[in-house]
């Protein structure tokens, strides 16, 4: 089975290269933030808390989320974050949110770097919660005891499911465009305090990071380049036609009729052609041509 296409592969280090990359918020995660904000705003009550595991540079994204209207941001800051496998990421996040009260945990369906799509499901497993992935629409009931969700399937199909709350939903960008922060929002965000946790400094988290994985990564390799569309004869053609195709270098022989002779003869021939192929009406110009 062949996976993925990213250009950020560094063959020397055998890992993803961060050189020359422009970092942007993951659109799936942005849709999770948007979903949370919408649910809070529609019901008029509740709090949106954003928890992130990432290196220092993600702070600017987190301030953007604050500017969108998030109430609280917790940043587990670690330079090693981008190399951590999904299981470790999930365990650290679970440790960070274990003390918090929540109805819903929302996260992006997949990350932009390795795109394993596992963190949300691991969180649900670790916390014993139901999980629905690739969610594009959430409707909570009034009592917040269950949600009707729509999931994105292939080729535009959707699936509807009912899920008890509390739960974990991983969101797809089809859920909707994240709102654009207001100017006052951005000003507030700049001044706001982001709660920082350094996983290396928390004993339980340090233990998790030191644990050997049950899974070995065998290798990371770029995909085989798919060649540009190459000229090839259709295998369904006869052998002689396949050979003719090769011999012609893929160019077809266009058959046309050549007219030679005096200008009047050529004019008449062109006229006949135009008439036959209905480029001109049959009686238009006939007199003029006959007069030649």
């Amino acid at each position, binding site marked *: 089975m062949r996976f993925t296409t990213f250009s950020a592969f560094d063959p020397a280090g055998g890992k993803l290269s961060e050189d020359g990359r422009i970092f942007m918020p993951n659109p799936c995660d942005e849709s999770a933030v948007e979903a949370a904000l919408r649910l809070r705003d529609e019901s008029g009550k509740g709090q949106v808390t954003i928890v992130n595991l990432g290196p220092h540079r993600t702070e600017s994204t987190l301030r953007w989320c604050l500017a969108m209207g998030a109430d609280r941001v917790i940043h587990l800051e670690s330079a090693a974050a981008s190399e951590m496998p999904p299981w470790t990421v999930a365990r650290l996040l679970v440790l960070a949110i274990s003390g918090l009260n929540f109805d819903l945990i929302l996260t992006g369906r997949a990350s932009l770097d390795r795109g394993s799509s596992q963190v949300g499901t691991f969180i649900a497993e670790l916390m014993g919660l139901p999980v629905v992935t690739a969610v594009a629409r959430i409707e909570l009931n009034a009592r917040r005891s269950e949600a009707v969700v729509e999931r994105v399937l292939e080729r535009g199909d959707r699936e509807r499911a009912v899920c008890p709350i509390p739960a974990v939903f991983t969101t797809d960008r089809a859920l909707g465009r994240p709102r654009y922060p207001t100017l006052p929002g951005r000003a507030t965000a700049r001044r706001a305090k982001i709660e920082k946790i350094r996983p290396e400094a928390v004993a339980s988290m340090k233990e998790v990071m030191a644990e050997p994985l049950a899974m070995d990564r065998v290798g990371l390799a770029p995909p085989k380049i*798919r060649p540009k569309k*190459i000229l090839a004869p259709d295998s369904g053609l006869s*052998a002689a036609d*396949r050979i003719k195709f090769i*011999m012609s270098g893929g160019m077809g022989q266009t058959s046309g009729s*050549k007219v030679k002779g005096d200008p009047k003869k050529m004019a008449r021939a062109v006229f006949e052609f135009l008439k036959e192929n209905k480029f001109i009406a049959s009686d238009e110009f006939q007199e003029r041509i006959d007069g030649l």
Partner: protein
Amino acid sequence: MEKLTHLFSPITIGNVSIRNRIVQSAHITGFAENGLFSDRHVRYYEARAKGGIGLIITEAVVTSPASGLNPRVVSEGWHNEMIPRFQRVTDAIHAHGAKAFCQLAHGGSIGSSFFNWRHVESSSAIPSPGMGEVPVALDEKGIRRVIQDHVDLALRAKEGGYDGIELHFGHGYLHQQFLSPLTNVREDEYGGDLENRMRFTMEIIDAVRKAVGDDFVVGLRSSSDELIPGGFTLEDAKQFIPLWEATGKIDYLNITVAACTTMTYAIPPMMVPPRPFVYCAAEIRQHVDIPVFAVIRINDPVMANEIVKNGEADMVIMTRANICDPELSNKAKEGRFDEIRQCIACNEGCWERLLTHQEGITCMQNPEAGREDSFKILPTQQPKKVMVVGGGCAGMKAATIAKQRGHQVSLYEKADELGGAIMIAANAPSRQELSQAVRYLTHEVQRLGVDVHLGKAVSTEMVLAENPDVLIVATGATAISDPNPRMVGPQAAMDIEPGAHVVTAEDVLSGKVETGQEVIIADKQHYIKGLMTAEFLADQGKTVSLVMPPSVRYVTPNPYDMDHITLGVQMFNLKTKKVRLIADKAVKKGLQGKVVLQDIFTEEQEELAADTLVLSYWRQSDRKLYEELQGKVKEIYCVGDALSPRRLINAIYEGYTVAAKI
């Protein structure tokens, strides 16, 4: 300067690391001595390894006596005496940093009892079209024996120092005869459905891998499209080739095309566009995880680099390209692209000599090919003043070799540019690559600093005034436009009526004349001129009839003495373009609006309508200068068409040999 980074990136196949992506594939050479590798093989492969190539797959060695043919042409793998000979070849290849694989082959029904009086063996008792001899269908015991033959040869190759072997399962040979339902009508477990038909090859793979172990490369060559009605296509190949890979016992795939009758496309002549079947390798590569080799008419290292860069193949086979210029890899690596002598797929030096005449290969452009021991350019002990008259290929070759040796050389050409008569031939459809020979020689003339005088017709007075130490006359030949008996002999002569429209093939190809609609070509020469002129005129929309020359030999109906492959493809072209071929007749009279043909056996005459009669005779030497200056110059030589009008291969050969010895 462009750097071909992809072509020159190393690669590891199995446990063998190869310095670049350039390969010379297995091609029979005609150098064998009693079926064994000879010193000629050693020198030949050594020159290519020295030239910087990454991998050499040496010529096919047949596994079993039933597959033996001419022991000068087909190497025989069942002799233990091959082992030290293998060793000499692999030592020479390794000494210059290249790697060596040995190809194992078995022709099956593509064989003959002509040479060793043995019967031929195959999957079923169906003769191969074109070879004609009915084979014996291998029974269970025979299959065991053939598999053992493969194992024995693989072990000999390993002991002889090879880095790996290539199993040749393609080109319509024995293994493809088992694979294809057209040639396998067996009813046992080796015939029937695909799994059964692949059983023979699977058992060979298992046995060979078991014998050689894991530390030895085992590659596989297969056709991917038979190109025959009812034969397997690329779509089929995408199904069965991965099954061989899935055994886990194969280290690479070498993807070719063709079955027996379509081999002309596997070693295609000039009129087949370059890299015609790379798409097969590219498509197979998408379905397998092991390296894939692309092959067939890839003559340009820049093109080869693109193939690797685009992911179409991992290795690029440039076989004839390396026959023509063994230093191709070094030159390409150093960016000296213009110095590469590029193969033009004329097949004259290589395939024609080998397949039509069972002679060792050389090269039209490279007389040293196949003669690496005896043809060497040595610096002269005594620099001489050399005057070369005639700037065609014979003259240019003589001038450049003489200059390279240290002589003081001046080259005179009466036209405004160098090139000579071959440039007329280069006007013919798909023959433009002939001008590549001129391009290379012109570049060498400039690179070496030969003193060139263009637009200068040379007279005897001029020569005497120059007083050279050596005069090389390479003044070429001209078309025969007057077919009178004194010129062409009574048998080939024609009566031409005044007012009849009669032109030469040379005039037609140069674009100097416009013919009428109905054209008759009287072809009196046994090479390619008439065939190309016929196609040239057919492309212009003329109605063309080609009156072919009489057969060369008493017992064969073939009127043309030329490379069979080029002839085969050209006949296909003429058929497609509706040229009428007339055999066993000769044009006797050219009249206004018609010609008179005479049957060469019955002498019956008939008239054919013709607006234009095109004369395609041999040519007439222009030897005036040579004859007049006999005894008046210290050393005088005549080379190429000026000596006798023949082919480009003779012109270059003579230019080389004369200059190499003065």
